[in-house]
C-alpha cells in the first residue's frame, strides 16, 4: 500500500501534538 505523504510540515506537527501521535519526517532526493 503506497504511503500518502503530506507536505505541510507545520500543520502535521500541530496535528501530531493535538493527537499525541508520532510523525515520520522524510528528506528524500526525488519525488516518490
Amino acid at each position: 500500500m503506497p504511503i500518502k505523504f503530506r507536505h505541510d510540515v507545520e500543520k502535521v506537527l500541530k496535528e501530531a501534538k493535538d493527537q499525541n501521535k508520532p510523525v515520520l519526517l522524510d528528506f528524500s532526493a526525488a519525488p516518490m
Partner: protein
Amino acid sequence: MHVKDDAAAFKKYGEQYNAHWTPTVLELDSNGEEFYRVEGFLPLDDFLAQLMLGRAHMDFKQAKWAEAEKRFREIVDQLPKAEAAPEAMYWAGVSRYKGTQDATALKETAKSFTQRYKDSSWAKKASIWA
C-alpha cells in the same frame, strides 16, 4: 519533503533537524522532537525494520515496557532476516526484564542468541547474561 519538490522546505527543516544527507528519515514524537533517525538507502525489509525499531525504542524510552517488548518482538517475528532483527531481539529481552525485574528474561535472551544471530554483535552483548 523532497529536494526537487520543495528545496526551501528541505533547507529549512534540514537545518532545524540536522539532516544533511538524503535520504534521511526521522521519527519525531508528538512534540516534534527527534527520537530515531535512518540515514542512507536500505532495502525495503531493512528500512521497515529500522522504522519499527525506532518506534519500539520510543516506547522503551517512555518506560512502556510491555509495548516496547511487543514491538521489538514483532521485528524478529515479521522481519527475521533484517539487519535490525538481532538488535530487536536484544532489546526485547531488556524490555521484558525492565517490566518484570526477572533476570530470567535476560538469561533466556542470551540462550536465544546461541540459536539465532550468534555471529552478531548483539549476541556478544547478550553473552554476559548467560
